[in-house]
């Protein structure tokens, strides 16, 4: 980093994604070379789990150590900008700061839950498989899962456009395959194809926007893009008195187009309106663990990318994108809630509800121009709360979905009486998602977001959120009531919580309870 062209890599900084990538390779090798035994899938699952826990430990150590680790840096003398008189700081592609560590921790913790759910799903496929048709290949499954998680950990630490796009693709590509791994399942194949098409289109759009941004600013590093945009903005103001004067005016328009295109690409990933329509079918068709992955891990990394892009590369253009974000947030929560109301299948309902929740995560970003720190803090805090609550719901849904006709909401009638542990956990998750006590985690999450929005002066958005809270409650409470209703005659099936998924439920419930009693845990990290 002393001006040479050879980069020195700080392996400690990239340790977490590195661990995941290595374990992914290990899993593939083990799958190939271990003799095929009945317990083989289980071993692979445990190895994956070990890798995740190791990565989580790395993240914890880095967080405890404090400070910010950077690597893959380009000195200021290189790159698009002519070096100014003073020594500009180097631009780094990989930065492990608090933001990236928080997102990485969420992703990894969610990954642990998803792996536990996968162990149940794969074991069930092995039991009921009757030969090859229903079986899920465990080695490939865990490899793809680890690959996606590697991307998700890499993404929040990315600080240049190329890294962002590459790691976003690393999250997305394995998920198509995971969705389709349940071979001979028409629904899963359809879901995979749909997800693939949507994702590829969104990547193309993002890349187009990225190329425009690069063209305008001459750099791919987020901090340099910001500096370049500010410079042109200042020049324009100096020349014509406003942003739309002369040559730089054209550039401003190109920048606007680039922002819209890049943001649209990320909007696909987080299923924001108007790019939300794929969510229902894909969640329903994919195996439940993959739906959980999509709704938490994939969404968290999408949000991380969007937040990085908007707040690191384009903070100077906040006046341009913030109103758009506000409108998209309002539309997303409304559309998600309206669509969720009429669902009869549990996973579809969760799909649309998670679209609605995306709206709440997006909403604080709309006041970024007024209160930057609070806005990002509120978004990330909501994301953390949401991840914990949503994973409970998905874990219980997986347990119930294993029953015949278990996908339908009717299967939940009386669940709290038949299987109290599962039923009460799901009820807790649902009131949390609705944002009502005793689900205090959800209530505090909502308060954080409302506070940021009201503080930022967006009264209309706060009112839309208030109306949407009620709309969301409608279906959450209907589902919750179903859990406590007397079971249908002759219905006495229970779900087994003595499986890996049961452990997953327990972990998620424990975390959510902690968040409910001491939300400060989250707020102090994200604030």
């Amino acid at each position: 980093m002393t001006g040479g062209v050879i980069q020195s890599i700080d392996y400690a900084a990239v340790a977490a994604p590195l661990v995941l990538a290595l374990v992914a390779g290990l899993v593939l090798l083990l799958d190939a070379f271990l003799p095929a035994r009945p317990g083989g899938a289980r071993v692979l699952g445990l190895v994956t789990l070990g890798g995740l826990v190791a990565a989580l430990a790395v993240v914890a150590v880095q967080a405890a150590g404090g400070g910010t680790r950077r690597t893959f840096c380009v000195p200021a003398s290189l790159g698009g900008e002519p070096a100014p008189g003073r020594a500009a700081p180097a631009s780094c592609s990989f930065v492990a700061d608090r933001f990236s560590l928080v997102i990485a921790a969420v992703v990894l913790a969610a990954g642990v839950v998803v792996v536990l759910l996968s162990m149940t799903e794969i074991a069930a496929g092995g039991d009921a498989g009757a030969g090859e048709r229903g079986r899920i290949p465990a080695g490939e499954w865990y490899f793809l899962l680890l690959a996606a998680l590697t991307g998700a950990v890499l993404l929040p630490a990315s600080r240049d456009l190329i890294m962002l796009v590459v790691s976003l693709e690393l999250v997305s590509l394995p998920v198509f395959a995971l969705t389709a791994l349940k071979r001979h399942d028409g629904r899963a194949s359809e879901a995979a194809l749909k997800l693939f098409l949507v994702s590829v289109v969104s990547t193309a759009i993002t890349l187009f926007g990225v190329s425009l941004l690069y063209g305008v600013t001459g750099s791919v590093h987020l901090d340099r893009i910001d500096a370049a945009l500010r410079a042109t903005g200042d020049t324009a103001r100096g020349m014509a008195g406003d942003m739309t004067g002369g040559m730089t005016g054209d550039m401003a328009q190109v920048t606007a187009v680039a922002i819209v295109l890049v943001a649209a690409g990320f909007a696909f990933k987080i299923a924001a309106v108007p790019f939300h329509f794929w969510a229902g079918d894909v969640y329903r068709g994919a195996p439940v663990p993959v739906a959980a992955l999509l709704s938490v891990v994939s969404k968290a990394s999408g949000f991380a990318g969007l937040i990085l892009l908007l707040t690191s590369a384009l903070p100077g253009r906040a006046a341009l994108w913030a109103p758009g974000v506000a409108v998209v947030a309002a539309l997303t929560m409304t559309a998600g809630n309206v669509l969720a109301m009429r669902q009869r299948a549990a996973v579809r309902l969760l799909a649309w509800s998670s679209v609605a929740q995306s709206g709440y995560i997006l909403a604080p970003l709309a006041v970024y121009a007024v209160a930057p720190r609070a806005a990002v803090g509120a978004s990330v805090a909501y994301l953390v709360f949401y991840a914990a609550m949503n994973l409970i719901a998905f874990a219980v849904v997986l347990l119930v979905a294993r029953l015949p006709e278990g996908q339908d909401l009717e299967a939940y009638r009386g669940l709290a009486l038949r299987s109290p542990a599962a039923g009460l956990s799901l009820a807790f998750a649902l009131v949390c998602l609705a944002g009502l006590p005793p689900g205090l985690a959800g209530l505090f999450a909502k308060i954080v977001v409302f506070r940021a929005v009201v503080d930022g002066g967006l009264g209309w958005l706060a009112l839309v959120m208030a109306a949407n809270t009620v709309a969301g409650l409608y279906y959450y409470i209907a589902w919750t009531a179903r859990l406590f209703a007397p079971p249908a005659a002759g219905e006495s099936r229970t779900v087994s919580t003595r499986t890996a998924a049961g452990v997953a439920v327990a972990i998620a419930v424990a975390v959510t309870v902690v968040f409910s009693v001491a939300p400060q845990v989250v707020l102090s990290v994200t604030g």
Partner: protein
Amino acid sequence: MSWLPIALVGVPLLGVVVAAVPAVRDRAVAWGIVVSAVVLVLAVALAAAFDHARPADMQLQTDRPWIPGLGLRFHLGVDGVSLPLVVLTALLTFLCFVHLAGHPPAGGRPGALVVTLLVLEVGMIGTFLALDLLLFFVFFEVVLVPMYFVIALWGGAGRRAAAVKFILYTLLGSAVLLIGLLVVWTQAGTLDMVALAGRHGSGMARSAQILAFLAIGLGLAVKTPMWPLHTWLPDAHTEAPTVGSVLLAGVLLKMGSYGFARIAIPVLPEGAAALAPWLGAFAVVGIAYGSLACLAQRDLKRMIAYSSVGHMGFVLLGFASLTPVGLNGALFANVAHGLITGLLFFLAGAVKERYGTTDMVRLGGGMLRRLPYVGSLLTFACVASLGLPGLAGFWGEMLALLGAFRPAAGLSRPLFLVFMAVGGLGTVLTAAYFLVMLSRVTHGRAVETIPPPGSLEPPGPPLATAEGVREVLSEAGEGAEPVEPVATGAAVAALDREGAGQETARASAVVDDGRASATGAGAAGVGAADAGEMGRARRPFRDVTAHELAAWLPLVALIVLFGLWPKALLAVTTPAVQSLLGSGVAP
């Protein structure tokens, strides 16, 4: 730092946790009585420890940081405004459990009901004790889910829709309330209610105050409820089980009006002054509307529910006057309404239990003759509710009207005189509907819905169609000799289905046994069916039971006490109200 407020919130919470233990779960109702009795003792201890020499000050405070990230502090305390409501809540909850011991819920699962009610108690008491805006909001929200389940699981025939309506309406109110509270917070920079009330709005722009008062007022008005946001209330009250109705009317509505006294008016005085005429207008419309709606009701429970709209209108009118007298009246009416309407709903539940219906036409008359104790208690409660001087209902409404007679400076006096006149008309209408109801239900000739034991009169001709049954019924209603036809199961069931749709399943199930005999007045099918189900088809009505008396008499005593000695309550509230309004002396 005092442990009493924490214990008041913590004991019911602990009770919930312990109720999960299997050994306790089997005797859940007894456990509920124990826990709520401890809470009641604590509430009385709170009243005793309270320094009555300075009720305007916030006392027995406890203040701990909870969530620094939100600025949320666990700040509890009492003053003269909240103390009566805390004791009222503890008392009504305890009485509900006593009632529950003798009258297990119709929906079964008493253990779950006990847990739900205890969670409800945490929220209710916490709301009255909280001194932090967000903490208040958290407790305010705590009651929603338990009350939803009380209605949805143990309610009447239309319970599902009523419960959903209740929770959606009130959550919409809460969400708007939250926005208002956050506006206060961003403007004033603190969540501490004591500090905010001490400032009397200084440091907040008038426009922001109006905006915040609008949002907070709307949120509280849904809960109170204020016309035209009351539409959730009649359904919720009608469908809720007895204990649910009692707590809903006795305490939950008070949480809305308490919010006006604790937050909206003292913290946002300029906003209150700007919007008080509107509040007053909606309040008197509510009074008139509630009374007129009561006149049109056939169902006893629904009528009491609508009477709550009218009574809470008086409370809001008192607040709108922005004078110490008016606020005092509002707070007095608040407590009085809690006692009286609590008693009324207990009685309506008792009537429903005995007759199987609360439809006044089907009840027929003569309750005083048939059930002398229940009938006379009903008469007493109605008379108290219509505001007879000497009973608790009188003082609050009189003071509220007096407040409107001389509203705060800055409010239009002619306008408030009109409000007072309409309110006065409302008291007359209130008297009218209660007296009409009494004349229909308690007086008159008792119509034997169920034959006394041993008297096996020859049955009349069997009726095969709903038309036939109705014909007989209408004849009887016009005072003809009661006939004793035997309706076939199908006929009665059809009549039921065409009627309010109540208890169709139950009625037809029992009537199909061929045991039920439809007789003279209205309730024939259902009354007999209900009795048949209880396995006492040939027994007369039972008058008041020991559990009922235990639950009702404390309320009766307090209604009389506060009616004869209003100073007992006013001495506590008056200084507190003056300090809230920032005026040193009473006018």
